[in-house]
C-alpha cells in the first residue's frame, strides 16, 4: 500500500483549508483516494488552522495522527505539530520569514527551507499563493509530475483571466524548481507516482448531504448559519438556480423549521440543517411536524457542546437529544451516515422515509464528517427512486357543504392520504392540536388514543425500511467494536490493522439509529465481547443499545476533547481491552496546544 500524509498549518485567513482541497484533487485525479481533515479555531484571522490530507491507494476516509510532511506557514505550526511527523519525515518552512533557531528539530526530520514568500513576490503573486508554492515544492519532493496541479490551477482561475492563471502556474513551478535545484529529493524517503483510474469525486459530508438532497428533489431549503452546518446552506444556495430550489437564510432556526413545515404542507420536499444550538430552537416544531404528520428532514451536524462549547470541534453527544427532542411521545427516524457516500445516499432515504410515513427524519453528522472532504467513485453514489407515499395532487370530488377531508383517517397502516393545498376536495387543517379524522380539534379520550396509536403504528411498516448494522471483519471475532455515524471509517480501519496482525476483532456500525432495527438484539447476542466506541463522554449510543437490545458492554473507548478518535488509538485500546489491560478508556490529546490563542499551554 502506498500512502502519504501531508499537513499544512498556519494562521486563520491564509487559505490553509483551500490548499488542502487542492492538494487532494491532484491525487484523486491520478488514481489515488484522498481524505482531507481540518482543525481550526472559531476565529476569522489569527488562531491556528491546520489541514491534513491523507493520500492513499486504498479508500481511507479518516485522518491518522501522524504526517509525513509538514508545511509550516508559521513557527507555531512546527511547535504544535513536530511531534506528529513520522520518522524521516519532512518540514517545509520559509526561513526568510521565521527564525526557528530556538526550536530543537528532531534529528531524523528532513528540513526544507523554501523562500515561499520571496517566490510568490517574484511572480507578483498575492500572499495566499504561498500555499501554491508549498504544494509545488511538495510535489518536487515526492517526484510527482506538476501537470495535475497545473490543470487544477487552470480550471480554478480560468475565469479570472490568463494573467492570474499564469501567475499561479509560475509560483507552483517556482516552488517545484526550488526544491529540485537545492535539495537531493532522493534522500526524502517518500515518493508517489500517478496511477491509472478515473477521477474521483471529492466532497465534504455537508456537500454530500446538499447534493444528495438535490438528487432527492429538494425544492425548499431554509437555515440559519451555525458551524459546522453552514456549508450545507452555502452549497445548496450556490445551486439554487441550477436546480430551481428556493433557499432562505432565515431570521432564526425557529423560522427555518416552521417555513420547512409550511413548504412541506404545501407539497414540496423541504429541509433544514443546523447544529445543536439551532436544533434546540427547533425542538418545539419537530413535535408540530409529528402531530400534524408533515414530512420534514433535518440535518443535525454536531459539535462539541454543551452550549457554545468548542464551536469548531467535533463530538457525537447530541444523539439522545435528537432521539428525544420535543414534548410528547412520537415516531421519528434518526439516521447517521458513516461516510460521505453514505451521506449522499442516506439523505435521499431520509426524504423517502419522511414522505412515506409523514414523520420528521433527522440525519446526524458531526464536524468531522461534515467538514472533512473524502473521495468517492461515482458509482458509490446511488440514485434512490423517489417515494412520496400517499400524496394527493389531483383534484377529487367536492366535499359536501361544511365537511372537511379526512386527512387523519384512522387507517390500517397509520398513514392517511395527504392532499396538498390547491387540490379540490382535500380541504383540511394540518394541525398541532389533537384531532378527529377530519382534522377538527378534539379532547375526546378515545379519539386521542386512536390517533396516537395510528401515528405510532406506522412503525410496523417502517421497520421494513430500516437496514441492519454493517459488520466489518471476521464473523467469529473475540471482540466486537460497536460504533455509529461518522466513526465508521476510523473503527473499520482499526479492525483491519488488528486483523492484519491476526487479532480476531470485528466492528458493527450503525447508520440506522432510531427506531432500532428489529434484528439488533439477535445480532449483538451473537458477539462474544462488546466494546462501545463513541465520540462523547457518556456512551449515549451504548446506553441506547442497553435499553433497546439488552446489550452488555465489556468495555468502552470514548473521546470528548473535540477531536475524533484516530484509528491508531482505537487499534491500541481495543487490543488492550481484549488482552485485559484496560476496560473503560477515555482518550484525549495531551498536546500542549491551544488553537484558539495559537499558543503552547504549559
Amino acid at each position, binding site marked *: 500500500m502506498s500512502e502519504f500524509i501531508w499537513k499544512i498549518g498556519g494562521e486563520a485567513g491564509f487559505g490553509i483549508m483551500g490548499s488542502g482541497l487542492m492538494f487532494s484533487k491532484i491525487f484523486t485525479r491520478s488514481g489515488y483516494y484522498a481524505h482531507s481533515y481540518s482543525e481550526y479555531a472559531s476565529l476569522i484571522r489569527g488562531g491556528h488552522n491546520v489541514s491534513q490530507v491523507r493520500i492513499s491507494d486504498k479508500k481511507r476516509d479518516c485522518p491518522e495522527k501522524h504526517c509525513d510532511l509538514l508545511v509550516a506557514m508559521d513557527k507555531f505550526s512546527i511547535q504544535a505539530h513536530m511531534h506528529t511527523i513520522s520518522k524521516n519525515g519532512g518540514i517545509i518552512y520559509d526561513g526568510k520569514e521565521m527564525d526557528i533557531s530556538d526550536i530543537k528539530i528532531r534529528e531524523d526530520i528532513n528540513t526544507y527551507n523554501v523562500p515561499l514568500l520571496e517566490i510568490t513576490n517574484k511572480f507578483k503573486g498575492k500572499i495566499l499563493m504561498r500555499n501554491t508554492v508549498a504544494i509545488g515544492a511538495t510535489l518536487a519532493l515526492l517526484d510527482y509530475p506538476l501537470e495535475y496541479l497545473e490543470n487544477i490551477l487552470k480550471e480554478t482561475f480560468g475565469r479570472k483571466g490568463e494573467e492570474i492563471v499564469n501567475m499561479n502556474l509560475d509560483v507552483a513551478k517556482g516552488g517545484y524548481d526550488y526544491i529540485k535545484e537545492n535539495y537531493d529529493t532522493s534522500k526524502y524517503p517518500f515518493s508517489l507516482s500517478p496511477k491509472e483510474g478515473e477521477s474521483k469525486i471529492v466532497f465534504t459530508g455537508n456537500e454530500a448531504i446538499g447534493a444528495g438532497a438535490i438528487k432527492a428533489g429538494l425544492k425548499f431549503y431554509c437555515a440559519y448559519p451555525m458551524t459546522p452546518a453552514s456549508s450545507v446552506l452555502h452549497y445548496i444556495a450556490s445551486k439554487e438556480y441550477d*436546480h430551481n430550489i428556493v433557499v432562505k437564510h432565515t431570521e432564526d432556526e*425557529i423560522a427555518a423549521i416552521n417555513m420547512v413545515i409550511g*413548504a412541506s404542507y404545501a407539497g414540496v420536499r423541504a429541509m433544514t440543517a443546523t447544529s445543536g444550538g439551532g436544533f434546540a430552537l427547533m425542538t418545539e416544531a419537530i413535535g408540530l411536524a409529528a402531530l400534524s404528520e408533515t414530512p420534514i428532514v433535518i440535518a443535525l451536524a454536531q459539535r462539541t457542546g454543551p452550549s457554545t462549547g468548542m464551536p469548531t470541534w467535533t463530538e457525537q453527544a447530541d444523539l439522545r437529544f435528537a432521539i428525544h427532542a420535543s414534548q410528547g411521545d412520537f415516531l421519528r427516524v434518526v439516521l447517521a451516515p458513516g461516510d460521505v457516500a453514505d451521506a449522499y445516499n442516506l439523505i435521499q432515504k431520509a426524504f423517502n422515509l419522511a414522505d412515506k410515513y409523514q414523520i420528521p427524519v433527522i440525519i446526524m453528522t458531526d464536524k468531522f464528517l461534515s467538514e472533512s472532504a473524502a473521495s468517492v467513485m461515482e458509482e458509490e453514489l446511488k440514485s434512490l427512486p423517489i417515494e412520496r407515499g400517499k400524496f394527493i395532487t389531483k383534484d377529487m370530488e367536492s*366535499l359536501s357543504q361544511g365537511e372537511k377531508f379526512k386527512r387523519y383517517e384512522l387507517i390500517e397502516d397509520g398513514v392517511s392520504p395527504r392532499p*396538498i*393545498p390547491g387540490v379540490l376536495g382535500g380541504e383540511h*387543517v394540518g394541525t398541532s392540536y389533537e384531532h378527529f379524522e377530519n382534522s377538527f380539534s378534539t379532547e375526546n379520550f378515545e379519539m386521542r388514543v386512536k390517533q396516537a396509536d395510528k401515528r405510532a403504528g406506522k412503525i410496523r411498516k417502517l421497520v421494513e425500511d430500516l437496514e441492519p448494522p454493517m459488520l466489518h471483519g471476521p464473523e467469529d471475532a473475540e471482540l466486537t467494536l460497536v460504533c455509529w455515524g461518522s466513526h465508521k471509517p476510523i473503527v473499520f480501519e482499526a479492525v483491519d490493522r488488528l486483523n492484519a496482525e491476526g487479532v480476531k476483532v470485528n466492528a458493527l456500525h450503525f447508520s440506522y439509529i432510531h427506531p432500532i432495527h428489529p434484528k439488533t438484539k439477535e445480532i449483538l447476542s451473537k458477539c462474544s465481547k462488546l466494546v462501545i466506541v463513541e465520540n462523547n463522554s457518556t456512551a449515549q449510543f451504548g446506553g441506547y443499545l442497553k435499553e433497546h437490545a439488552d446489550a452488555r458492554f465489556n468495555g468502552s473507548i470514548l473521546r470528548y476533547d473535540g477531536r475524533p478518535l484516530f484509528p491508531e488509538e482505537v487499534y491500541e485500546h481495543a487490543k488492550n481491552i481484549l488482552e485485559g489491560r484496560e476496560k473503560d478508556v477515555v482518550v484525549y490529546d495531551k498536546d500542549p496546544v491551544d488553537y484558539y490563542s495559537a499558543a503552547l499551554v504549559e
Partner: protein
Amino acid sequence: MTNIQEFTTKEVPQWCPGCGNFIILAAVKSALSQLNLETHNTVVVSGIGCSGKDSHFFRTYGFEGIHGRVLPVATGVKLSNRKLTVLGMGGDGDAYGIGLNHFIHACRRNLDITYIVHNNEIYGLTTGQVSPTSMKGMKTKSTPHGVIEQPIHPLALAIASDATFVARGYSSNMPHLTKIVAEAIEHKGFSLIDIFQLCPSWNKVNTAEWFKDRLYDINEAGHDTSDKKKAFEKALEDVNTNYEKVPIGIFYKEERATYGDELPQIKEKELINHEIENIDMSKTLARFK
C-alpha cells in the same frame, strides 16, 4: 362571488359571548366570498391562542401551528405555491410577543400574505395576562401592580419595517373590517391588519364603551395612504394623544415587488410543479472532480 356557505364549517366556534373573534371570522369569510376565492386555493394559517382556533372554522385548507410561528409557516406555503391565497391569523401575543421577530422580517420580506392580528391587548386563552400591546399601567394577572413598559406600536413597527399595506380595523365594525380585509387580500405584498378586538372576559379597560368616542376612520378624514411619514405619525396618534384619538382604517399602501417576484426559480413554474424524478446530477457532481 363565492357563496359564503362554502367557507363555513359544520363545526361551530366556542368563543366567549361577545368575543370579537366572531365578527372577525364573519368579516374574513365575507371578504373571501366577495373576492370570489375558491376554498381549495385558500390557506388559513393560525397560531395559538383564542385566534389560533380560526383555521378550523374556514372550510378551506388551513394550518394550526405553534405559538408565534404563523408567518414562517405561511411563508413556506406561499413560496411553494404562489397561486394560493394565504392568510395568517394571530393574536397580539402570537404576533407581537413570541413571534415579533418573524413579524418584522415578514414586513421587510414583502411576501404576498395577509396577516390578520386579533389585538385584544390581553392574553385571553391563558386567562388574562399582560400582552405586548396592553396599555401602560394596566393591571393583569401577571402584572397585578400595573404594566411598567410602553406598549408595542404595531402599525408604526410595520411601517418602519417597510410593510406595503398597513391597516387597522375594529371588531365591532364589520362592514369596515370586511372592506379592509378584502383590500388587503387583493394587495400584492405583505399586508398587516391589526384589529382592535373586544375581550369581554379579560380586558375590562379597552371595552366597547372605551372605544366609542375615541375611534375614527382616517380614510374618511382624508388621510393620504401613500404618505409614509404621515402614516407613521398616524400610527402613533393614539399614544401621542393619550388615547383621545384612536385612528382606524388603511394607514399606508405601497406597490413593491414581492419576495417571490425576485426569485427566477419560480418565475415560470411554482415549486410544487417542478419535476423531481430523475434529477440529472452529472453536471453538479462533475464539479467535485
